[in-house]
């Protein structure tokens, strides 16, 4: 298979990539951390729009509000909330790993489940709060 020096680099074994592994929760949460991070990156646009609209006056604010109150706007904001909380909890997990803790088989699995369950629970609680306190004033 190796014909000459040119083929040597290509023939050197590479570490196996994603496709060879059985999907595990830790792996899926690692991928989710990057995807939620990328989503939050573009979510900065929504944050900027909100601030600029509020500063611009009632007209701009009304446009922003009618977008947020639409079905699409609500879905985006709900997804944004989950992405934010999930990325935050995932970040906390990484900080725990960064100080060298939580690497045991049970610990890392527990941390990963806690990230997912926690992000879903906190997102739902926040939105229950929005519907309970929203429009009171």
């Amino acid at each position, binding site marked *: 298979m190796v014909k*000459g*020096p*040119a083929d*040597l*680099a290509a023939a050197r074994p590479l570490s196996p990539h994603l496709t060879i592994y059985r999907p595990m929760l830790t792996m899926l949460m690692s991928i989710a951390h*990057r995807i939620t*991070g*990328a989503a*939050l*990156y573009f979510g*900065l*646009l929504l*944050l*900027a729009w909100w*601030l*600029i609209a*509020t*500063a*611009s*006056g*009632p007209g701009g*604010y*009304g446009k922003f509000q009618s977008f947020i109150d639409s079905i699409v706007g609500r879905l985006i904001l709900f997804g944004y909330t989950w992405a*934010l909380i999930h990325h*935050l909890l995932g*970040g*906390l997990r*990484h*900080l725990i790993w*960064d100080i060298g803790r939580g690497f045991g088989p049970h610990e890392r699995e527990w941390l990963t489940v806690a990230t997912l369950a926690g992000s879903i629970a906190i997102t739902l609680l*926040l939105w229950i*709060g*929005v519907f309970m*306190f*929203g*429009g*009171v*004033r």
Partner: protein
Amino acid sequence: MKSSMRTPLSRVRYRGAAHSGTGHFWRQRLTSVALIPLTAALIVILFSLLGRNQAAAAQMLGSPVVSVIIVLFVVTSAYHAWLGMQVIVEDYVHHELGKIALLMANTFFCAVVALASAYAVLQMSFGV
């Protein structure tokens, strides 16, 4: 890549340090730690704004403590996002020119978003 019997390690050895070291890793962690209390504060601010009209919202966002928190959040998260997107581009984009273009676009995007958001907050704060 040129054909060679030398290992990648031996090719870079003795060429000196890249002089960035763990800086990228550290700044990512530093901003992530800062964003924990800032995100909690942002959520509290958003809740206190529920149901308010534009004038009340602008007045509240323009108050000193809230302004500083929002500007800190926006600048810190834009910086954190800049570092994160840089890694994503470096991981997946292997075409050299495309990579450079996307890394530049990443910097421009984060700078514009951070400055535009901070400007809006300061505008409400100073009432101009």
